[in-house]
């Protein structure tokens, strides 16, 4: 591997403010009030906010995020920057992300190995890329531009896979490793997504873990999935709408034992349960981190 691979600490926030390997939960609007409750603040190591929910410069949500940022470390997770776009990045989108990052000074900033925009349409999904040398060039150039604009490295997340692309020439872990080497970015390992891609696209988990530059992993995501797809081609679907499955917990333990503790986030989006349910899931993750 390349010498450009940086140590874990390089991605874990600014060198001046190291970010501990604690468990946290995703910040969702129905839970704002709970986190703003001064008398009984919910105990969590950190929160993660979806960047695009705060792209209006002002307003009610923006104000709540600024208040929360005084009480909890908040990482910023982009879901729509479209790092995989052959057309390049949307300058306004990047400007708004940069403004938010400057305001919050988050310990971690992350995005996805995916695309969401084509022409004038934003598709609101993490669409898959053919993993080729051309894609590697394009994604690297887009990441370079983001990191130059934000003046910091970002973490890039492995997406959940559903669509086999026959003309891909690189394995996902190899593609991510080369992105790390070329751009100096870090990685966000979504264990649920890896589990799903293994089930749906026959990604070999052992080979994936062996090929990934583990020191570049600055964050881990956990979430629930569901069984879906047509009867003759059942697939796991990344719903973020259920507790983390046994299989994903087991893979998470393997990852932590092998690579060491990392800041770990429990995500939940659809059928959002009471905050307690999320916090319980985070407690389970914390127990695994504490044993490592």
């Amino acid at each position, binding site marked *: 591997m390349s010498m450009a691979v940086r140590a874990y600490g390089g991605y874990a926030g600014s060198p001046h403010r190291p970010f501990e390997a604690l468990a946290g939960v995703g910040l969702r609007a129905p839970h704002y009030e709970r986190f703003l409750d001064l008398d009984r603040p919910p105990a969590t190591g950190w929160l993660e906010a979806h960047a*695009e*929910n705060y*792209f*209006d*410069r*002002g*307003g*009610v*949500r923006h*104000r*709540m995020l600024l208040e929360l940022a005084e009480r909890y470390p908040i990482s910023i997770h982009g879901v*729509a*920057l*479209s790092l*995989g*776009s*052959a*057309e390049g990045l*949307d300058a*306004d*989108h990047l400007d*708004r992300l940069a403004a938010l990052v400057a305001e919050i000074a988050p310990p971690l900033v992350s995005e996805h190995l995916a*695309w*969401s*925009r*084509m*022409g*004038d*349409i*934003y*598709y*609101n*999904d993490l*669409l*898959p*890329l*053919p993993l*080729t040398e*051309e*894609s590697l060039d*394009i994604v690297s150039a887009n990441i370079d531009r983001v990191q130059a604009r934000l003046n910091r490295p970002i973490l890039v997340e492995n997406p959940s896979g*559903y*669509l*086999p*692309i*026959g*003309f891909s020439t690189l394995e996902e872990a190899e593609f991510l490793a080369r992105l790390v080497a070329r751009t100096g970015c870090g990685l966000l390992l979504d264990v649920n997504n890896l589990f799903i891609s293994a089930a*749906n696209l026959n990604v070999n988990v052992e080979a994936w873990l062996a090929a990934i530059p583990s020191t570049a992993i600055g964050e881990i995501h956990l979430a629930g999935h569901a069984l*879906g*797809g*047509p009867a003759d*081609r059942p*697939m796991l*679907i990344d719903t973020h709408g259920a507790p983390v499955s046994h299989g994903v917990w087991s893979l998470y333990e393997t990852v932590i034992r092998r690579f060491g503790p990392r800041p770990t986030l429990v995500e939940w989006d659809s059928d959002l349960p009471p905050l307690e349910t999320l916090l319980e899931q985070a407690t389970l993750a914390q127990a695994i981190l504490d044993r490592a």
Partner: protein
Amino acid sequence: MTVPRPPSLRAFQQGLAMRLLGRDEEAADIGLDAAGLAVHANNVSASLQTAIETAFPVVLQLVGKSFFAALAERFVRDQPPCRGWLSAYGSEFPDYVAAYPPAAGLGYLADVARIEWARIRAANAQDALGLDLQTLATTPPDRLEGLRLDLHPAASLIRSAFPVFDIWQAHQRADRKDGLASIDLAAGQEVLVTRSGPSEISTVALEAGDAALLAAIDERATFGDASQAAADAEAEYDLAAALPRLAELRALARAIA
């Protein structure tokens, strides 16, 4: 036998995009796995329809789940978002509802959608100072007449031929439809939506004078002309009482004297 050359990333993305948002009948077969593609096509359509459903909960209650689903599916296909942040997505929905043939008999529906969109705008608008009454009070009368005020950037005025405030209000609690039966569908209402506090969104029905005043200000009339419009609309309109009330609601932007 020659191996077909793989598409460029751009061509691949154009091809895949054409299979999304229910446009696949027109699209060429690009040899992608149908089941995998279906997962993404469903993610795109379902997530955008959910965004519209979340933004317009009263419209949903008024027309029911299946009517709304058909409406939202068509809207999402005809007017998909162009930006990667969805707080701006749905601004075109009220006009779309107004022109949606199956809703032609529900004249009030588009204006109810306008109230719901105004509330989202109010929540997301940039922070801005409201009208400073002191500035008005210290402006000499001759200059006051010609002053042009403006609505606060978070404020919206909805002037409807239907009692849309009462309809909207009756749907604020899912378990009770208070007073729906007693609403007179022939009576129009004028509704003001504002961000009245740091986290408070106000939705109020206006008397004729306040509505005429704000409508004139919104059309950039001078303060003198707007006051006259209010007096014409409501006998004994009390402008001195109205201004603090509207300032309190943050209906008006800071005046540049």
